[in-house]
Structures are given as C-alpha cells and as structure tokens.
C-alpha cells in the first residue's frame, strides 16, 4: 500500500483508482485488467470500507484530489461495501465519482439495493458481477473522461 506522500507527488501525473476488497485474488485480477486499460493509473488497495473512508476523509480535509474510480467489494470485515457506500454518499464536497460494485453475488436483493443507490445518486454507480475477464470500453472511456 502506498503512503499518502507518494500519492501526493504522483497526483498530477496519474489518475487515482481505489480497490476496496479483502480478497487478494480479486485485487490481483483487477490490477492485471487495469494495467491493460492504462499505464497512467495510481491504484490503491484497501481491505475494508473503513480504511478507504478514512483515506478519503483525509484527502478531502487536505483538499487533495480524490479517487476517480472506486472498485468496491460488498462482503468485507469491519465495514462492508454497502456501509461504505452509504457513508461515502453522505459526504459533501466530493466531485462526481465512478463507483464500481464488484461482487460474486447473484442475489437479487443486492442488485435492487444497487439500483436504488444508482438512481438517486449524482455519482456513477455500476454493478459488475464476477468473474471479470476484462474491463470494457465504457469503463476505459469513463476513466479518460474523468481525467
């Protein structure tokens, strides 16, 4: 995991991407796929919602650039994906962000939950069901557009 000073120095050059997931294999896979999309990415990992939220709060306080894309797992210890999303959506002074919920769940309730968030938020919230073989063109354009 990179420390915050390095984030700051690389900020101007790289687009910031957060992966919030406690499964190392998923993180490995996502990194592989992201590398194919762009080499100009600063990828940060968090293994639960709480640590990611803390990082975001610190960035906001220091008026530093926030992540443009967040890959978010649902089932995690300490703070799960839904709780993170709820806390994140409550935050003020956050520019429009793309949040990609990455889950292996095929539970209809998870999908319903996502829909209700997606429909009411100013942020772009997507729902990706694992396995992911590649990140599609839309994901990439979105990344470039934000940058």
């Amino acid at each position, binding site marked *: 995991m990179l420390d915050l000073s390095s984030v700051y120095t690389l900020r101007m050059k790289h687009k910031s991407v957060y992966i919030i997931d406690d*499964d*190392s*294999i*998923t993180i*490995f*896979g996502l990194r*592989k796929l992201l590398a194919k999309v762009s080499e100009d990415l600063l990828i940060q990992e968090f293994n*639960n919602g709480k640590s990611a939220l803390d990082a975001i709060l610190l960035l906001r306080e220091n008026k530093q650039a926030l992540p443009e894309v967040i890959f978010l797992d*649902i*089932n995690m*210890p*300490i703070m799960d994906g839904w709780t993170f999303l709820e806390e994140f959506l409550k935050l003020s002074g956050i520019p429009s962000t793309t949040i990609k919920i990455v*889950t*292996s*769940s*095929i*539970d209809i309730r998870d999908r319903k939950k996502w829909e209700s968030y997606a429909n009411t938020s100013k942020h772009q919230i997507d729902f990706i069901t*694992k*396995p*992911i*073989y590649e990140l599609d063109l839309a994901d990439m354009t979105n990344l470039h557009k934000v940058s």
Partner: protein
Amino acid sequence: MKAIGTHVYDYLVQQLPQPIALINTNFELVTASRAWKDYFEKANQSVIGNTILKLWDTTGSTLWEKQLRKSFNGHIESGIQYWTSEEGRERWCKWTTTPWRDANENILGAILKVEDVSDQMEQEAKYEKLESLLRDQSEITKVGIWEYHIDTDQLSWSEMTKKIHEVPLDFVPSVETGINFYKQGHSRNTIAMLIHNGIHRGIAWNEKLQVVTAKGNERWVIAAGKPLYQNNKITRLVGTFQDVTQQVAQEIKTRESEQLLRTLVDNLPLNVFIKDLESRKVLVNKAECDYLGVDDPNAVLGKSDFDLYENDIAQISRDEDLQVIKTQQPILGKRTIGVKKNGNSTPFLTSKIPWLNLKGESKGIIGISVDISEIVQKENQLKDLINVTAIQNKKLINFAHIVSHNLRSHTANFAMLLDILVKEKEDVEKERILEMLGEASDNLMGTLENLNEVIDISTNVNLERKSLNLNEQITKVMQNLSAILQQNHGKVVNEISDQVHVKAVPAYLESILFNLLTNAVRYRHPDRTPEITLTSRWEKEHTIFSIKDNGLGIDLSRYGNKLFGMYKTFHNNKDARGIGLYITKNQIEAMGGTIMACSEVNVGSVFSVYFKNEA
C-alpha cells in the same frame, strides 16, 4: 150503633194475637188489636177515630184509598207496603183487607190485617244477590254445580255444568250418562270409583280429569264432590265441575316450551349461564355443569364467580357483568380465560347479553361461552410453525446468500485466474498465478468445510440433550486453550458452582464453550491482559451461562444485527473467519436456547447463553 158495636168488637179485637184493625166506611179506625198498637207503637195510626188513609205516610195515597174502597165493595185485597216508622226504621208490611159485615151481610167497613215481612224481604234480597253473584262467578270461573239425591237417584246439573258438557239446558242427566261423559280409560275409571267411594264410604274428592262433550270436544275438568249427611246417613252428593281446559292447555304449552328450551339449552355445544344482579348463577346448562365438574346444576346455582374461579379472574368477570347490567349493551365474542380454583385454565369466547325484565330493567346477564382450547392450541401450533418456518426461511435465505456469494466468489476467482493464466506470457507471472490458484482452492475447501458444519447443526435438530456438569465441560475446553491463555497471560475466574448442570448436546456444548472462550482471548484489548469471568444463574425455564471479558468490545448499535451472522467480522483480525458466532448461535438454537450479547467498545463484552431446562 157505634156505641153498641164498639164494646163487643173492642173486647174481641183487642185480644187477637195479630195486628188487626176495624175500619169504617169513613176510613176511620174503629178498633185495633193490642198487637196492632204494639206494631204501630204510639203513632197516631193506632188512635181510635183517626183516619186510616195516612197509615203508611202522612200525605195519604189514592191507591191505598182505592184498595180500601174495593173491600167496602166486598173484595179481599192484599199487598206489600213499605213505610218508615217515626224513629226512621224501614219496614216492609204485608196487608190484607177483608169486607166487614154485620149479621145481615151489610158491609160496615173493612178488616185490616198487617204482618211485618221486613226480615223476609231482606233475606230475599240477600238471596237474590247471592244467586246472581254465584251465577256471575260461575260464568267467569266456569265452575258448574251438581247435586245427586241418592234415594231418588236424581242428578241435577247447574246451567254451567250443562254448558261445560255442551248439552242443551233442558238435558236431564243421570249418574250413568254423567260418568259416560268422562273419557274412556283413566278418567272414566277414576270418576266411577270416586262416586262409588263417595256414596258408600263418604269420601270427598277433587280430581283433574278429561271429559268428552256432547259435541265431541275433549276438555280438562276439575271434578269435586262431597257427601252430605242427614240423620247420620249419606243422602246426597254435591259438588263442583270446573272447566280447566284452557289452564291445562296453557300449562302444557308452558311446560312444553320450557322443556323445549331446556333441551335446547342443555344440548347446545356452548356453556350457557344466567346470572342475577349479584352475579350469582341462576341457570346453568349441561355443558356449563360439565365444565364446572358437577352433575347437578343445583350444586352451582346461587354461587358467584368468586366461589368458582380464581379471584383475579372472578373480578374481571364481575366487572364485565356490571358493565352489561349498567349499560344494557352486550359484550360479544370476547376472549376470556376461566381459571378454576384448582388452577385449571380454559380459554373461552364469551358473550354476555343483558337480561331485562318486562319493564326493561336489568335483571342480570345471560352468558354464552365456547371453549376454544382446541382453537387456541391450533393457533399456537400454527404460530410456532410460522415462527419456525420464518426462522428456517431466514436461515435458508441467509445460507443461500452465503452459498451464492462465497462459492461463486471462489469459482469466479478460478475463472478469472485461469483466463489470466492462458493469456500470460511471462513465466514468473505464470508461477505466481498458479500459486494463487492453489490459494483459491484452499479457500474453497475451507468454505465448504464451514458450510458442512452449519448444515450438520441445522439438520440435527433432534440430537439428544444430556444433563452435563458445566464445570467439567469448561475444564475440558480450558485444557485445549491453555497454550493460548499462557501466551497472552490470560486469567480465567470461574465463579460457577460445581453443582451446575445444563441440558445440552455434549459436542455442541464443547464447541460453544470453545468458541466463546477463544473469542474472549482473541479479541483481547492490546493495552491489558485478558481477564475472563465465568458465571451462571438459574431461572425457571433456563440455566444461564455468562462469559465476561475485558477485551475490545463491539459497537452493538452498529453491528448488533450482524454479530451472529455468517461471514461477518468486525475486527481487523487475521484469524477472524466470521463463522464462530454463527455456528455457536446455530448450535444453541438447535437445542432450544438463545444467546445474547452486551458490549461496550474498549471495555469488554458479556455473552450469555440460555440453556433450556425442560427436556
């Protein structure tokens, strides 16, 4: 003439024993007997020479003068005259006038004879009055009279007796025809015997019997008879004959409707009771008797709810009664509970209806209740079933979710890693991917083992629970944990008495104790050595085991609903699998118990396990 005759007549007339007077053709009193003078007393009617015209009243009447004149012409006259004496006494007087002749048949005047009939007249009036009264009464009560002369064998019936028999008024009855009017069988046999006994043994009777009238109508009568004696010999039978058909019909009708009502009320599959203003039972049906455990309704009549039920229940019932009595509004279909003195309780659906008199005033209440024990039992079974189903359903959904998520996540990882592996060209990277595949495989195995454990508990709901000594079990588990406790300088204070037993499945109890003790050490606070206190207490339905630690604590307001969920972890602890408390909870619930948690962040947690005492 006057002088000569006077002496002779005087002497003779004066001695006559009856009130008699001689009157000349001038209507003057010539002479009168002493009895006359006594009868008219000192009045001027008896003064010789006075006019007789004013005998009855002072004004004199022309009719009286005419009648006297007729006698002067040779006729005998008579009549009854009403007059009032000087003292104001009312008198009835019967008089006769006869011509008074001399030896040559010359009429000299009239002989006036009077007789006081006041008493007779009075008797007659009384008699007439009585007779008419009797007639009226007989008409109203339909009581006829009859009389039988034994020596002449003559039977006479009064008008009413004939009317009751529906025979013409000129009908002449005899004992034989009379008896034949009685209905064949019991009635006729009875009357024949009664008459016989009356004549020969002097026994009176009074019997309700049936007759068939001349027109063929059946009637109920009360026949009464009584012998009359003359010179110690029975000479006559007299009696009454009363038509009571209507009363009997009414009586029968009343009895029949009473019987109908009683049969209906007794055979209703409902408890029926009527209570007075003091809530005392006035009527109870068979079902109510059965419920109260008595054969005879009299055993509970007059008793109040306070005599039959528990005080609290009786008071509730009394309050309901008073409400109905006061408002005259019924209570319908209310769920009540009857708790008898012996503690037996029965659920009822009760209605209480105001019982009013004809003036519309409250007389009490009419109660109807249905024993709904079976319904309530079914209801409870259904509720239990719904609860169990709801819990099972929740578990199932939870489990499905876990399966869908966890198994899918592993397979998704396999798919992804394999995809990457195929596309990868660098050997070092390939090596790394293969390592990851191995890791994914281990994870999958672990998950499958966890799921297996959960399924084991859920399918073994009926595992036999044994009474286990709690401390023995704790000691056994502690031996396995001694290494980890020593390593962390943990201290366990056991305040549980050696006598405490819990009913549990041995393997489950071991697992539960292991999990809770492990958690207490695992989530210790970094700033202090772990201190764990074990206690137990006993309640009517449960034996409770509590384990208290001074560890990290959990924010229950935040995680409370997820604490016992599967794959829920709350601390950044690499050993946390999120399965221990889930399994613990499942094991406890499989044994009919519950688990509860209290916790404060940075202070510690208390977990309490409720073991069911009953089998």
